[in-house]
């Protein structure tokens, strides 16, 4: 018993990730935490997407299921679990069964290297960004398998279009990523690195987020990646492959019930994964805003109060809306539910104000806040932009983003070389 406890405690003082320290127990704990966090995030995304889209379209969205539709995702999940599991007649059973698993596997394995803090990652590979790009390109295979195994032409065309689009925009993504990685080699000490934690530490050492570096090169690279990542995850305005009015539902037409929910889960996880790549590479990962401009212990204190303040603000909004609920006896349960939810959020906010917790949760909070901003952008794009036609989509990927990415890469390399040799040798 004692050696087990000692094994568990041996990690607590270290400044490495569990994978780096070789500690299996804590690695498993972190994996479980990431898995749970991701599931909660996907559920929240489902609700947020419907509500925000609705508010953008001047309507209310789901209001009936729980207070303000808060239990709607749970109702959706129950419905999907209880639906009949259909397999088309001539479909290839083995491939039909395997395809959702491959997509979910690829979408979830990516989170092994995502850095929520300087030691808050499951592990820190020294090819971190390469691993993320590679594993997310394996999800294309799952989509192709799904489309083919359904043995029907809408899914097949949808899958081929979807995978052609994903492969094309992977090139532009790769070029943008390379120009960001190039900027990591401009440290005052140390060399460039592909590891995710190393990239954020390079931004800390150089004193600016890479989105502002070599203005406007960092911004253009970020813009290319932001567009390519929306196309990579088949989201609006690049969702021709799965839009209802075009191809009934693309590659997941013939999937129903639990298998469809796996595709849905994988899509949202992939969105969160590429958003975390963008946040790590350009927006400074877990660093709080203005780490060098507004430094000093008072500003540290102010910024460390943000997590608790955010939750308390959400709790206040819940109470405000609970007060605004109609005073009809039918709404009593909903009012109590909303007030209870607000109380829970307020308690979490108060817990996050404790100094001991504050220091540890800060990094995770800033990372999650930035990724949440990207998620809001995704929903905003869906509510705002019309859909690209497929040939326009491919034209943009190859004729606009690829030359732009090449130009940004060449210019970034030249400016970096100038900086190294001439300006600050």
């Amino acid at each position, binding site marked *: 018993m004692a050696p087990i406890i000692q094994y568990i405690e041996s990690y607590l003082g270290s400044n490495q990730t569990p994978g780096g320290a070789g500690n299996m127990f804590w690695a498993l704990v972190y994996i479980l935490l990431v898995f749970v966090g991701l599931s909660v995030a996907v559920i929240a995304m489902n609700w947020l997407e419907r509500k925000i889209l609705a508010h953008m379209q001047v309507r209310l969205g789901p209001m009936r299921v729980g207070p303000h539709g808060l239990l709607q995702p749970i109702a959706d999940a129950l419905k999907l679990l209880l639906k009949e599991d259909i397999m088309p007649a001539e479909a*290839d059973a*083995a*491939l039909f069964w395997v395809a959702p698993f491959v997509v979910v596997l690829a979408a979830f394995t990516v989170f092994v290297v995502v850095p929520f803090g300087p030691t808050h990652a499951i592990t820190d*590979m*020294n*090819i971190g960004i*390469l*691993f993320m*790009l*590679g*594993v997310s*390109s*394996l999800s*294309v*295979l799952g989509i*192709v*398998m799904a*489309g*083919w195994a359904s043995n029907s032409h809408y899914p*097949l065309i949808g899958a*081929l279009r979807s*995978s*052609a689009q994903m*492969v094309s925009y*992977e090139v532009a993504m*790769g070029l943008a990523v390379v120009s960001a990685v190039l900027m990591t080699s401009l440290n005052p000490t140390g*060399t460039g690195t*592909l590891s995710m934690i190393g990239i954020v530490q390079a931004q800390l050492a150089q004193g600016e987020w890479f989105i502002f570096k070599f203005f406007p090169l960092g911004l253009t690279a970020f813009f290319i990646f932001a567009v390519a990542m929306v196309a990579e995850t088949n989201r609006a305005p690049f969702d021709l492959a799965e839009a209802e009015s075009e191809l009934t539902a693309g590659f997941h037409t013939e999937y129903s019930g639990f298998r469809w929910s796996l595709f849905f889960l994988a899509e949202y996880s992939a969105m969160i994964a590429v958003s975390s790549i963008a946040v790590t590479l350009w927006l400074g990962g877990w660093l709080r805003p203005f780490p060098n401009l507004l430094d000093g212990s008072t500003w540290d204190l102010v910024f460390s109060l943000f997590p608790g303040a955010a939750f308390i603000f959400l709790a206040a909004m819940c109470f405000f809306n609970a007060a605004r609920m109609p005073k009809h006896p039918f709404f009593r349960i909903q009012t109590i539910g909303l007030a209870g939810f607000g109380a829970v959020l307020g308690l979490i906010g108060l817990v996050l104000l404790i100094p001991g917790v504050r220091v540890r949760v800060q990094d995770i909070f800033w990372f999650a806040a930035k990724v949440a901003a990207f998620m809001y952008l995704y929903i905003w794009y869906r509510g705002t932009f019309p859909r690209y036609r497929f040939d326009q989509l491919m034209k943009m990927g190859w004729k606009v983003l690829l030359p732009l990415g090449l130009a940004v890469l060449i210019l970034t390399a030249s400016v970096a070389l100038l900086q190294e040799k001439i300006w600050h040798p």
Partner: protein
Amino acid sequence: MLLGGVLVITRKNPVHSALALIVTLLAQASIYLMLYAPFVAGVQIILYAGGIMVLFLFVIMLVSIDRSVRERQFNSQWVVGMIAATALGGLLIAVYTKGTSIFPDRALSIVEGDNTQQVATMLYGQYMFAFEIASLLLLVAIIGAVVMAKKRI
């Protein structure tokens, strides 16, 4: 890896063969990992499994499969096949037993973290000419593909 390789050549359905090839390539990437070359493993997954095999699958899926699935699989050249396989196996055994000088004595103590830097230094330093020639080759291939696929030049 061996299972994947065997499945590639024995499945009737070409899509199953392509997927078995993907499994084989992923196994190859893990062999690179065991040889302390994480960069090569990562690039193998991105390019081979995630790019080239997707294109393979495109072509296989767009060509009608019904005919090829129903084709009778034959191996009427099994004599020549056995002779060739025995010869190759004999060559491999001979190299393994007699040519011990080309294998390292003990496991190489390569620092795993340096793989990217070392590949980059070699590729852009010592082998720069070969790198440029390879990219020229790829350019020729792309131009050839475009010329063959265009309707009118």
